[in-house]
């Protein structure tokens, strides 16, 4: 299908303004950066929910196809050492799955509302037959102030539809930004996404809580500059593989 291709960058400038270094540098972190890429124990793992298809594919050594939704744009082809989310994730997975074919496909730009994203998903799933969909969402819906209940309902419905196609789903919520007067607006969609995750047993990677822990001065994990997308990507890849490995 036209419009689908290996993808994607995250949106580092928007999500992590303090990440001044090019994202590529984050992909091969200096020791100082690596030491910053750490988390409170409770945030290391995905929230509750299983990844049965991923576990099966990893166990059998079949090709592991990951579709990324809402992970941003890519100007030109993603090179091996740039910081784009798709390239980073593919590398992080390949490192841990020696020899197993990994394909990461980006779908749609960042900042899609769930309503916009589901169209892309419905079209892409029959074509790509992915093992796992990683869906970063919430920012666009928060800004467009779509109905949070409808937002959560659509996510649950999408998860049920994907499960019926034997496709796993991991949700990634939106980033935190310190000092916003509108934080309550954003928080509403973090909570709605969390509700959808609990209601539908969808594993959630808690980016909001993680970036808040990094940015909040009182947290023992607060660090300046805050770690960037490369760190989040590694943590996400590890969390997915841990969940698919131990089934917890």
């Amino acid at each position, binding site marked *: 299908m036209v419009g689908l*291709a290996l993808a994607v960058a995250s949106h580092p*400038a928007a999500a992590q303004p303090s990440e001044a270094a090019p994202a590529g540098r984050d992909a091969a972190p200096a020791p100082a950066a690596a030491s910053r890429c750490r988390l409170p124990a409770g945030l290391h793992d995905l929230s509750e929910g299983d990844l049965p298809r991923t576990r099966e594919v990893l166990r059998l050594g079949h090709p592991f196809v990951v579709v990324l939704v809402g992970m941003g744009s890519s100007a030109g082809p993603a090179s091996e050492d740039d910081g784009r989310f798709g390239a980073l994730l593919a590398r992080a997975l390949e490192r841990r799955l020696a020899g197993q074919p990994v394909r990461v496909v980006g779908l749609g730009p960042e*900042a899609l509302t769930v309503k916009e994203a589901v169209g892309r998903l419905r079209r892409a799933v029959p074509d790509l037959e992915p093992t796992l969909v990683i869906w970063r969402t919430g920012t666009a819906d928060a800004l467009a102030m*779509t109905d949070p209940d409808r937002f959560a309902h659509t996510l649950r*419905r999408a998860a049920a539809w994907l499960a019926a196609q034997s496709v796993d789903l991991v949700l990634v919520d939106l980033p935190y*930004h310190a000092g*916003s007067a*509108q934080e309550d607006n954003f928080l509403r969609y973090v909570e709605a996404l969390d509700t959808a995750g609990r209601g539908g047993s969808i594993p959630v990677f808690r980016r909001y809580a993680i970036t808040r822990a990094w940015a909040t001065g009182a947290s023992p994990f607060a660090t300046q500059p805050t770690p960037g997308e490369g760190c989040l990507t590694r943590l996400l890849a590890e969390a997915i593989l841990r969940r698919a490995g131990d089934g917890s």
Partner: protein
Amino acid sequence: MAEAATTGREWRIDLFRGLALAMIFINHIPDNPLSRFTSANFGFSDAAEGFVLMAGLAAAMAYLPRLERNGMVRTTGRAWRRAFDLYVAHLLVVLLVSAMVGWVALAWDDPRFLAWINLGPVFDETAAALFGVVTLGHQPGFVNILPMYVCLLLLLPLMLPLAASRPGLLLAVSGAVWAGAGLFGINLPHYPNEDEWFFNPLSWQFLFAIGLVAGVRIMRGQPVVPGWRWLLPACLAFLAIAAFSVQDGLLAWPEIPELWFLIGLDKTYLPPLRLLHVLALAVVLARLPVAEAIAWLDRSGVLNLMGRYSLPVFCAGSVLAIAVQIARFLLDAGAGTEVMLVLGGLALQIGLARMLEWLDRDRRTAGAAARGPVVAADGGRAASGSA
């Protein structure tokens, strides 16, 4: 309305275009209290389908006399000039909403705002995004109808002569392109995002072609809707079933994923259910005195006025919808404030149309005094922005 009739325009097209513009504006502010009342909630298609169908009708009415009077070359030039006007209007809208969003992100010191309506690449990857914007490869969310319409006007010199001479052939070819695009997922690409056009021109051109054929028949005084007795009840039944089944949202998630085009409601590819729905709606609106009823309710002729100035009203509405989105977010607006903001946006669009009408009246009068009524009539038509 009497004035519209004297200018030779089909007043009902202007009325429904005005209504579609108002609904598109309301729909572009997601889940606001007024959006519950737009047509999108009561059927498979929404105001965008109605707008494109009427764009086809209006294009036939505006360009067929030119084609017959001035020939192919000049008509092509006029259609492409109009396409260029739309292209420029689209670029201005993108520039304005980008500037608005950029300023809000700076003033409120929150980089998350830069992701508004998919503008991220404009700020993040400016070089690539600028190239994408001018080549119509980067289309921000909610600001993606005009690029499709530019394509339709570029195709007009090919489609209109066929609509006039071989309508069956036009519909067959156009329908085949529509079906091929839907069945095989063929669309134009985005740049720099890995994505595709939200309004796929290869799909939506079919609805425009149907509008063109209908418009040619209207111009020639031929019946547009077949006279079959069962047609109106069948259309009404289909609309009722659609209104009922769309509430559940089940069709949005086809159980057989491979058949998303045939049984789904994916707006990008204008699937059969959406197409049939807008055509059934058009039959009902043509057969029943709905336009007369709306005109009776809208005695001041506001909808008709908006429809006559559809391009400037649409562009203003596109920018205002994002402004209202931003305002309600920053204000954390409750339902009452939201309604006031939406109505305020509509009032500004009506005010714009009134001002343009006033300016045109002035120009028409001056033109009539200076050059005589023939030139004045043409000036009035050109200014009214048909198609």
